[in-house]
C-alpha cells in the first residue's frame, strides 16, 4: 500500500509545485493538499482540502485520510493574498503547534518534513563565517520570520522527543530563488536601484526552487541506501555571491546607504508598498550568511543541481534587464579596448586581446585602479 502525503501551504507556488511533483512518484498513493485559501494553480490529482492549520480540524483531516507523511511547507515570511505580519506569525507558529499536536495524536504518522530557513542562524558580525547545523546562533533573531522559524524548530524538536518513532526532517533552506519565487529577497532584487548598506558587502547563498522540490521529495520518501533523512540539514547551492556581484550580474545600480539611515529607507519603501524591509532582511543584507552543506551531501545524500551562481543566473533570466545590463557595460569596456588597442599594433584585429575572457592575470599596475572604488 502506498503512502498518503499531506502537504500544507499548497496554495503557494512552491507548495503547488511540490504537490504536482510528488503525486507522480510511484510510492505515493494519494496526496492531500491543505491550505487556508484556494490555490490559483492546478494541483493535478491531489485532493485539496481547504483548512486553516491554526484550527484543530487539521487533526480530523489527518485521521480521515490515513495520512502517514506530513510535509509542512506553510512556514513562510509573507502572507498570501493580504494579511499582516500577525496572521503570518500565527500561521507559522500556532499552525505548526496545531499540526504537531495533531501528528502526535495520530498513530499512523511515520514521517514529518519541515521547511525551515537558514535565517535561524541570524547574521551577526561575530558569527563564524560558515554555519554548520550545530553552530549556535550568536544573536538569536529578535523578530520576524527568522524568529518564527526558530520557534517552529523548537516545537519540532519537542515533537521529535515525544514521538521518537516518527522520522523528522528539518530542512533549512538558504534564500530560495527561481523564475517564479516571490520572497522578500526577490522583491528587493527587483527594485530598479538597489539600496545597500554602506561599507558592507554581504555574502549570500541561494538555492534553486528545482533543488528545493527534489530535496523535499527525497526527505518525504524512505531514505536511500546508506543515507539518513531524518535530522536537520542546511540546503544551499554551492558557492557564494556577494551582494555587489549580484547587483552587477543583475545589471542594477546600487546606492550605498549609511546603516542608521537604512531603516528609514526601509520604512519609506514599505510605506510606498514596494517591498518589505524586515529588520532580519536588513541584517542579512548587512552581514550576509553562509552555511555548510556537508551534512546534506554526506548524510542526506543530496547534491543540489544548481550552484548559487547558477540559481542566480536562472533568476536573472526570469527578470527583465536592469538599468545597467552587464552586456552593455562589457560592450563599453570592449569599445574602450578597441579604441586603445590599435595604436601599438596595426597588424592584428583590434579586439582580440582585450575581449578574451581568459586574459591572464596581469601585473598589478595602474589600469586596475579605476575599479577600486566600485569594487
Amino acid at each position, binding site marked *: 500500500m502506498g503512502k498518503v502525503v499531506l502537504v500544507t501551504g499548497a496554495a503557494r507556488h512552491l507548495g503547488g509545485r511540490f504537490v504536482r511533483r510528488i503525486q507522480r512518484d510511484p510510492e505515493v498513493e494519494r496526496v492531500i493538499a491543505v491550505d487556508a485559501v484556494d490555490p490559483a494553480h492546478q494541483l493535478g490529482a491531489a485532493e485539496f482540502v481547504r483548512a486553516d492549520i491554526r484550527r484543530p480540524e487539521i487533526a480530523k483531516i489527518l485521521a480521515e485520510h490515513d495520512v502517514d507523511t506530513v510535509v509542512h511547507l506553510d512556514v513562510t515570511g509573507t502572507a498570501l493574498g493580504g494579511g499582516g505580519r500577525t496572521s503570518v506569525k500565527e500561521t507559522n507558529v500556532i499552525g505548526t503547534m496545531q499540526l504537531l499536536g495533531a501528528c502526535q495524536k495520530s498513530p499512523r504518522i511515520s514521517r514529518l518534513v519541515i521547511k525551515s530557513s537558514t535565517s535561524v542562524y541570524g547574521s551577526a*558580525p*561575530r*558569527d*563564524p*563565517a*560558515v554555519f*554548520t547545523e550545530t*553552530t549556535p546562533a550568536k544573536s538569536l533573531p529578535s523578530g520576524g520570520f527568522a524568529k518564527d522559524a526558530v520557534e517552529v524548530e523548537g516545537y519540532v524538536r519537542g515533537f521529535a522527543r515525544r514521538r521518537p518513532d516518527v522520522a523528522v526532517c528539518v530542512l533549512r533552506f538558504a534564500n530560495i530563488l527561481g523564475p517564479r519565487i516571490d520572497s522578500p529577497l526577490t522583491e528587493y532584487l527587483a527594485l530598479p536601484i538597489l539600496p545597500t548598506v*554602506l*561599507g*558592507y*558587502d554581504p*555574502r549570500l547563498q541561494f538555492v534553486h526552487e528545482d533543488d528545493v522540490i527534489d530535496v523535499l521529495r527525497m526527505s518525504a520518501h524512505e531514505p536511500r541506501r546508506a543515507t539518513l533523512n531524518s535530522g536537520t540539514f542546511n540546503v544551499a547551492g554551492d*558557492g*557564494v555571491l*556577494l551582494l555587489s*556581484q*549580484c*547587483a*552587477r*550580474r543583475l545589471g542594477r545600480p546600487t546606492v550605498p546607504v549609511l*546603516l542608521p539611515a537604512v531603516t528609514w529607507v526601509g520604512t519609506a519603501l514599505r510605506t510606498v508598498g514596494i517591498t518589505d524591509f524586515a529588520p532580519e532582511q536588513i541584517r542579512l543584507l548587512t*552581514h*550576509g550568511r*553562509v552555511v555548510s552543506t556537508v551534512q546534506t551531501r554526506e548524510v542526506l545524500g543530496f547534491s543540489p543541481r544548481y550552484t548559487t*551562481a547558477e540559481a542566480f543566473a536562472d533568476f536573472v533570466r526570469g527578470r527583465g534587464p536592469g538599468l545597467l545590463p*552587464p*552586456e552593455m*557595460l*562589457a560592450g563599453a*569596456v*570592449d569599445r*574602450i*579596448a578597441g579604441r*586603445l*588597442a590599435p595604436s*601599438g*599594433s596595426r*597588424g*592584428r584585429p583590434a579586439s582580440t*586581446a*582585450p*575581449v578574451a*575572457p581568459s*586574459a*591572464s*592575470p*596581469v*601585473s*598589478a*599596475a*595602474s*589600469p*586596475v*585602479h*579605476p*575599479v*577600486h572604488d*566600485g*569594487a
Partner: protein
Amino acid sequence: MADAKVIPFDDDRSRARRRPGRADGEAAAVRALPGPQGPEEPEGGREALPGAQGGPEAGAEAAAAAGADAGAENGAGAGSTDGAGTGGWERRLAGGLAFLRRRVTGDYEVDEFGYDEELTDQVLMSLIRPLYEKYFRVEVKGVENIPAEGGALIVANHSGTLPLDGLMMQVAVHDHHPAGRHLRLLAADLVFVLPIVNELARKAGHTLACAEDAERLLRAGEIVGVMPEGFKGIGKPFGERYKLQRFGRGGFVSTALRAGVPIVPCSIVGAEEIYPMIGNAKTLARVLGFPYFPLTPTFPWLGPLGALPLPTKWTIQFGEPIPTDSYAPEAAEDPMLMFNLTDQVREQIQHTLYKLLVQRRSVFF
C-alpha cells in the same frame, strides 16, 4: 647591552639595567648565528618579487597576443628595447581592461569566506605594496619555513597600534614564497563590526578569529595567520615593546593540532615603533567602543598628520615549523600539552625577536 641598540628614543638605558641577565645569554647565542642569514635573504627576496608581479603567465599571454617578438623580449625579461616597451604596456592595458570587464559584469568568484582572490592580487595588494617595499622596506627571512602546499598556521607577535603588521605579513608571504601562497589572516571581531573595514577585510581573505573558521581554512589547506596576543599585544604601551603578552588561551594550538598542520612561529620587528603609544585615553576608548585609544607623540595632537606611521625598517622572520601531526587526535583535549606547546611557540617567537633586535642597526635603517 642588547637593548642599547633597540630604540634610540626613550628610557632604554633604565630598562636595560632592569632587564635580567637572560637577555644577555640569548644575545650571545644569537651572535653565533647571524652570519649565514644576513646576506642570503635579501637576495632571495628580490628574486621573488618580479615572479609575483609578472610571471610566466604574462609571458605566455604575450606570446599569444603580441607575437613572437614581444614574447622573446619578455623571455629576456628586461623590457629594454623600445618596441618591447610598448608591447608590455599594451599587454598590461589589455589585461587591465579584461579585469575591468570581469569586475563590472560581476563575473568573478569569491570563496565562502568572501575572499576575492582577483581583487586582492591585483588591487588591494598593489595598494599596500608601496608601503611594504618603500616605506617599511620589509626584509623577509625564513620564508622557506612555510610549506609549499597544505595548511599551516603562522603565529606572529602583534604590535603597532594599528594592525599593519598583519597586512605586511600577508604581502610578505604572497610576494616571497616561491609558490606565491596566500595568507589568510584571522582578525578580531572589531574588524567585522566596522563598516568598510569589514568589507575590505573579507575581500582580502581575512576572517573572524574563531576556532571554526580557522579549522575550516586549515583543513582546506590554506595558510592561516594568527596573532594570539590580540589587543593586548597591539595596544600595549611603548615601554613594553617586544615583550610578548599572554597568548590568549592557546586555542590556536588545539586548532592546529586538530587540523594536523604545522605551526610556523613568526617574529615581526619594526612594527612596534610605527606608532609609539605613550598613553591610552581609556575613557575615550570606552565611549567609542574601541579596546584602546592610542596617544602617541604625534597623535592626536597633529591631527591626521599625526596618524602617519613612522618609517621604521621592518624584519619579518618565519621560524622553524613545529610539527603537530605526530600527536594523537585526542591530544587537542589535553590542556597540559596545549599549555606546553603554546609556551614553546611563544618562547621561540620571543627568542627570535631578541635575536633580530640585536642584529638591527637602527630603528629606521
